[in-house]
């Protein structure tokens, strides 16, 4: 009779210990997010040593890219002798981010897309950085449209616009254009031209002329890009109703279906995501695809792209209300970070992401570091601060630019006049997830029923929107 009682006692002790550990965790996170730092804690004390874990390069980046980052860390540590920075390879993926976040395997400073910030703030999963950011001289100069993504309902800034502010562009392989008898200086400007050029590339070179992302929510993301470019929207203006069955989305899917099945100019692959389509493009296996304007940097760092082959132009805009889907990357600090870590984090965010846009010295130093390791400088981005500040920055780095800007003029000459459209505001990633199978079905089934597929996806998206609000 005694042994079960003892077992019960043991179990109880175990449970209590676990409970204690859990409460320990939760009180930690409360300390992190709830406490308002006093004026003294915004900066680090002289004798306080902090080790800061931050995100670094994409997994599999080149030695040169690693060297450039290591140099940057060295410079930072020379300026901030009491902060030790440890970088971790990182690629944001919708399908792994939540696991990393829940499992506590994210570094203290990590990167998130614009669209995710609001929910992470509401869930108390990232730190309030308002007081720390306010100490920076440029705190009031952010592009307000970008900054609002990272503000909580109390108006405080949690996530900070940091890099890769993009409009989606059409990336094309100049060598394949030439091989197919097309003029690489005259990339397509309408969807019909995209189609005929893709067919020419496929017919003449045997390489798929056009490719589309379809996996890990990128299928939905790019279908939204195509929809915006034809004047459609995925959600109503108030973000409460899914509108996936709109004509522009149908036209976009029909376009893909025609390229895949009528022209046979897309190959057979229906499982590209952001990273793998970059890889395929850099390897010369794709004629054209759509993605953020800044992916050239990633293709240099991780995919050894040959600069001669790269071309970037505007995504064709057709129909009323058409626009370029825009987004970007924010830096966020874990909710579990201590005040010291937050103070260190803002220094790193300033040094690594933002300072170069506002200080000539920082811009030049950064450009020199990158150039020394053959890393890209000058890949087109959209302004994080004002347009004026952006132009100044471009002037500072001009002598160091080493990316083929003249192969990107089709994009850079027009993007600043094009209407930018934000991503769907409610349950963004769920809407994308609902659309992934639709894109895959169109690319893998010749008899795919587009209307029916979109209706099913719309039901799923509406479910997600309802449960999010």
């Amino acid at each position, binding site marked *: *009779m005694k042994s079960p009682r003892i077992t019960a006692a043991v179990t109880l002790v175990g449970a209590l210990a*676990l409970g204690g550990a859990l409460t320990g965790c939760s009180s930690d996170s409360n300390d992190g997010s709830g406490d308002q730092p006093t004026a003294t804690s915004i900066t680090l004390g002289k004798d306080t040593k902090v080790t800061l874990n931050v995100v670094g390069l994409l997994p599999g980046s080149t030695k040169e890219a690693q060297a450039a980052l290591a140099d940057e860390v060295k410079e930072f540590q020379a300026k901030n002798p009491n902060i030790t920075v440890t970088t971790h390879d990182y690629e944001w993926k919708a399908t792994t981010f939540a696991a990393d976040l829940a499992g506590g395997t994210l570094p203290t400073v990590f990167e998130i897309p614009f669209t995710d910030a609001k929910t992470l703030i509401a*869930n108390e999963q990232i730190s309030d950085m308002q007081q720390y950011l306010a100490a920076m001289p440029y705190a009031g100069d952010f592009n307000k449209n970008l900054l609002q993504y990272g503000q909580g309902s109390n108006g405080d800034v949690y996530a900070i616009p940091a890099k890769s502010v993009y409009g989606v562009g059409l990336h094309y392989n100049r060598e394949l254009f030439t091989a197919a008898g097309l003029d690489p200086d005259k990339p397509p400007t309408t969807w019909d031209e995209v189609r005929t050029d893709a067919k020419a590339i496929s017919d003449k070179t045997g390489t798929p002329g056009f490719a589309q992302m379809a996996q890990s*929510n990128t299928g939905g993301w790019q279908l939204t890009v195509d929809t915006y470019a034809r004047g459609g929207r995925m959600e109503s203006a108030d973000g409460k109703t899914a509108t996936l069955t709109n004509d522009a989305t149908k036209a976009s899917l029909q376009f893909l279906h025609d390229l895949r099945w009528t022209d046979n100019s897309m190959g057979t692959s229906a499982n590209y995501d952001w990273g793998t389509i970059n890889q395929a493009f850099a390897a010369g296996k794709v004629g054209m695809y759509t993605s953020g304007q800044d992916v050239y940097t990633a293709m240099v760092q991780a995919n050894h792209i040959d600069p001669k082959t790269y071309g970037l132009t505007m995504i064709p805009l057709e129909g009323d209300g058409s626009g370029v889907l825009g987004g970007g990357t924010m830096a966020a600090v874990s909710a579990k970070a201590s005040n010291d870590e937050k103070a260190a984090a803002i220094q790193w965010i300033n040094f690594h992401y933002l300072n170069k846009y506002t200080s000539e010295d920082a811009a030049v130093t950064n450009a020199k570091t990158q150039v020394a390791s053959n890393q890209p400088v000058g890949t087109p981005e959209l302004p994080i601060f004002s347009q004026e500040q952006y132009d100044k920055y471009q002037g500072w780095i001009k002598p160091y630019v080493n990316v083929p800007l003249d192969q990107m003029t089709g994009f850079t000459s027009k993007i600043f006049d094009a209407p930018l459209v934000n991503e769907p505001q409610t349950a963004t*990633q769920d809407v994308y997830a609902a659309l992934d*199978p639709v894109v895959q079905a169109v690319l*893998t089934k010749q008899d*795919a029923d587009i209307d029916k597929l979109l209706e099913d996806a719309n039901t*799923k998206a509406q479910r997600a929107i309802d449960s999010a609000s």
Partner: protein
Amino acid sequence: MSATSAVPRSTAPGDSPGAGLVGGPAGDGGGSVPRRSSVARRRGRNPVTWVRHGGLSALVFALPMLLIFGVFSWWPIVRSVVMSFQKTNLVKPATWVGWDNFQYVLTDPDLPTAIRNTFYFALLALVIGFPIPLVCAVLMSSVRRMKGLYSVLAYLPVVVPPVVSVLLWKFFYDGSATGVFNTILGKVGLGPYAWLSSPSMAMPSLVLEATWAAAGGTVIIYLAALIGVPGELYDAAEVDGAGLWRKIWHVTMPQLRGVLFITFILQIIGTVQVFLEPYLFTGGGPANATLTVLLMIYNYAFGRSLGGDYGAATALSVMLALFLAILSLVYFKLTSAWSKS
């Protein structure tokens, strides 16, 4: 047959299996006598005699195991059952939502697809994956020379880490004409096939890799069981004029029955919980053709960057576990009758 199955039933159901075996034969006549004496013995027990009989050291020895199981198995199980009735993001305090999570999961338009795909995978894995190791084992056991080499070759895929082998096969399955499999098949005038990019071929492609990766382990189990088949049975069958196939059918198979029953149910449980292959190969695509129940659970919990619908994930997990538990019970009830007949 009726006598053997009646014995366990007549013993007291509350007793431990060991006591049942001992008390069983006496069950018809004076079943109550040993019971009464054991109760009397238990009443005489006290903490002192329990310690004196080594109860404490037994507990100390069991403690690490109890703790490890408790922390890493039982506690998570309890937590997931609790969580399936909650809405939580693991940061803010959880709220109780009753059956909402179950309702949400059961009305998910993807659920029927996932269940269908899971059964399809299990079925394919049975059709392809169940006989192949058996045939391999029977053939290998009849080989006389270089036995070790064949065992190594059969077991080698099991040693390759699963993620590595999936990524390797993903490369083989390249759908373009220059893909490895397409190049090989092209030499005999077949293809090119889309493999993972084709809704109809994706699932069989997954099963093929899964069979390749797992067959070695099952082959070893069968080989060990085959050693236990007495050689005289084959000699007797040969004297009776049986050929190879009749020997396998009438001698090997009945002798392996016990092992086959176990590997069969283990395979069902394993394949119904398939996750690695669809997750790494296709992410459930193309067009949900390889979306399985476990992948859905993963997607609920982690698939959306923000979703983290742990309630729905655990609700579906609990339902899957219940289903498998009931399936196993029914299966063992059925097979325990068969294997004794």
